[in-house]
């Protein structure tokens, strides 16, 4: 089982609903976030393009954060989801420095926090909060090993990319372009 997410940059309007829903669902303190929205503009007036991406932890198959964690707090969980055990984390920040996607933040509770793909919801048969709330339905989630999953189906149909593939992290967050 390999959980993954695809975000359709052609439909995303960058409203940040995913960010707010993640914050409330996971009690992320105000002023911090597990996910964020990036807008990249190219071209010159009037020939312009914008790519809008809802970004979060890439849940990499080859995660620098897991590799460099001195206590084993960062680990792979069900379906390759990268998680942090707060009680094992000493807050050293090595993982934050190693992540090419800047996906982790120091939680004021004294440990490092990040996206969990809402594993508590997945195990309950629900979608991650960001996917469930998105008004544009631009996010697709599921198991790459299941050809019928939403994410497998859309990746078969559409052109996509990953971020910083040259880092060799084998990310599980795809962007439909």
């Amino acid at each position, binding site marked *: 089982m390999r959980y993954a997410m695809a975000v359709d940059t*052609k*439909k995303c*309007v*960058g*409203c*940040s*609903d995913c*960010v*707010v*829903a993640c*914050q*409330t*669902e*996971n*009690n992320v*303190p*105000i*002023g911090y*976030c597990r996910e964020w929205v990036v807008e990249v*503009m190219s*071209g*010159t*007036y*009037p020939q*312009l*393009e*914008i790519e*809008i991406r809802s970004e979060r932890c890439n849940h990499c198959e080859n995660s620098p954060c897991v590799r460099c964690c001195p206590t084993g707090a960062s680990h792979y*969980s*069900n379906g390759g*989801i990268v*998680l942090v*055990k*707060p*009680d094992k984390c000493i807050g050293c920040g090595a993982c934050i420095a190693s992540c090419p996607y800047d996906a982790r933040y120091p*939680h*004021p*509770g*004294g*440990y490092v926090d990040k996206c*969990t793909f809402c*594993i*508590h*919801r997945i*195990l*309950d048969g*629900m979608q991650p909060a960001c996917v*469930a*709330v*998105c*008004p*544009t*339905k*631009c996010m697709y989630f599921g198991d790459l090993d299941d050809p019928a999953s939403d994410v497998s189906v859309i990746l078969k149909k559409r052109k996509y990319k990953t971020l910083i593939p040259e880092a060799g992290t084998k990310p599980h967050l795809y962007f439909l372009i």
Partner: protein
Amino acid sequence: MTSRRQFIKISAYGAGAMAMGAGVFGAVKHLSAPAAENLVVDTSRIPTYCEVCFWKCAGWVYKNEQGKIWKITGNDEDLNCNGRLCPRGTGGVGMYYDDDRLQTPLLRVGERGAQTFKPVSWDEAFAYISEKMKQIAKEHGPECIALFTHGSGGTYFGDLLKAFGSPNITAPSYAQCRGPREVGFIATFGEEVGSPENTDIRDTKCLVLIGSHIGENMHNGQVQEMSDAIDKGAAIITVDPRFSTAASKSKYWLPIKPATDNALLLAWIHEIIYKEYYDKKYVEKYCFGFEQLKGHVRNFTPEWAYGITTIAPDIIRETAKEMANASPAVIIHPGRHVTWYGDDTQRSRAIAILNALLGSWGRRGGFFRPEKVSIPSFPHPPFPEPSRSWRNAFPNKYKLADLALASGICEATIPSTARDCTFKGWIVNGTNLIETLPDQKQTLTAIQSLDLLVVIDTMPMEITGWADVVLPECTYLERYDSIRTGPNRKPQVALRMPASEPLYDTKPAAWMAKELSKHLGLEDYFNWTTIEEMLDWQLKQIGSSLEEMKRIGVKTFERPADDLYFSDNEEVEFFTPTGKIELYSTSFEAEGFDPMPIYTPHEEPPQGFYRLIYGRGPAHTFSRTANNPNLTDIMDENLLWVNLKVAKLWGLASGQPVWLKNQDGIVSEFPIKVRVTERIRWDSVYMVHGFGHADKRLRRSYGKGTSDTKLITRVHIDPIMGGTGMRGNFVTFLTEKPAETEVAL
């Protein structure tokens, strides 16, 4: 949905994990199973519908293990949101947790506007208000008290005012927003567009947006359907001086010169008629005045429009063809905030005419026929017949306005020998008139002329600082309100019930109005003991009950007939004077207005000035949300979009603070940071509306960004219905902080 079994399993792991803040997580000792991180511990849910904007999406409020409000999610059954709230709805919890909320009734002790208040009991507040209201009624008549409302509580204060004898109930959402659109569509189709709009975006093949920035405005259902339409390959045509988010999703972006939309619309009408793209059968069967229209637009060629709009003739032709190819599954979107230049009703007419020519009204992918449930009022004595209304203040003017004008009542509050009705009392519910009405000087002059200003709000918005009495309302998460009913593809009703007891000494507007009615001797009009009793009675009249609604939140009814769209050859009677879709408006003609839209040139920015355009950001609803902790976390200030070339000319860099001065010498109170971008024309600047709060009690939003309203001092009134055109203001940059004297209003 979480099963009961799983709920028990997870809550066993999760004690103590829900609370926020440092130290709490130390209590989490489990974590052997991955499911234990940030736990779902309570699946009990309370129905609500959102109050963060007018879309009123239905949802569920979830509470955490401590019984505190945790999160809000959409109700899957609700057609307004389809189970997905927008960022503001999701962040609605921030309204409840905002520690800057109003907490207790306040009575002014110093001069009006000096912001000196003393906390009083509810009884003292009501006694003061009722005494003043009686005095005004005695000296001037009960009609001289008006209600301004943009919130659910307005229903109850509206009933109170009607019982008191005043018909003057107004919402700024009419003359400051969608009014011209409704009047334009009523003149054409005999029906308004309504809210939520009856646009069939999910099935459209071509969506034309004229200054409408769906995706930045989070009109939830429309954003969702635009995304569906993109999935299905619909062509979007966006007409906007700014490369909006919607423009970035479009097949065509037409960066029109601002204030010239009517020329483009007339050229499209010309092209569609003279290339014979129009739906001949539909026009012949349903429309009135085609030959007059054809003659009227003869000279409005794409070449003519090019010189005015800067949109090339071939693009005008291509986009007209694109619409025709999609016909009748095409929507020239009516927009929502349409009070721009003072000829907005005529622009809305041109939009309605285009839709009529392409046969989209009443057709799949165009405009559907909405249905709604009508809910009877709880029995009460008949309201007294008022002897005069706001219209008496404007003899022979704005006759086609079908609702009261907030700006008109404001104007008629300033004493004048020419006025028949001078308002003496305002009750303001859930609308920050200082930031809502243009021309702040007029608003403040009017306020200073009042004998009574009562403000009901959850937050210390600027308007509360001018009040005589401030009544702190609890948020929508702490109260019952009227049953939501609104037009949609299927009729639905939704319930809002409290998820928490009101915090502090706050109360629901329904309770306030009922208590105040006792002080005024009008308690017969609030003839229910509890609001639950009233809601249950109402729900039983339509075949439901409070008990059922508490369980399901939203109830869907079947349409009385299977008539979402016109059927082939259906005989349709339109509610216009001719019974037809009026391409030539007989009602406009009768009132002395142009029966067909024309293009009128508007003033252009002087040298060194730029047209001030404003709009919406997806995380905010006007100024209402500006202090919401969850939403300020997403966006806490507005930025000034400045074209790259203009920035070079002025030596401006992104992030640099500037003050703005308008054509009348009015200077912004706070600086705004520049955003240098190619995404806007060189003749305009843009900002999101609702920032630059000047009330220090709003600690998160005070002085963040700039208020566009303050710079909108020149207002172009629509002669047809009194809408306040607000886009004829021009600003220039001040890179140094201006001297204090220049800032004064």
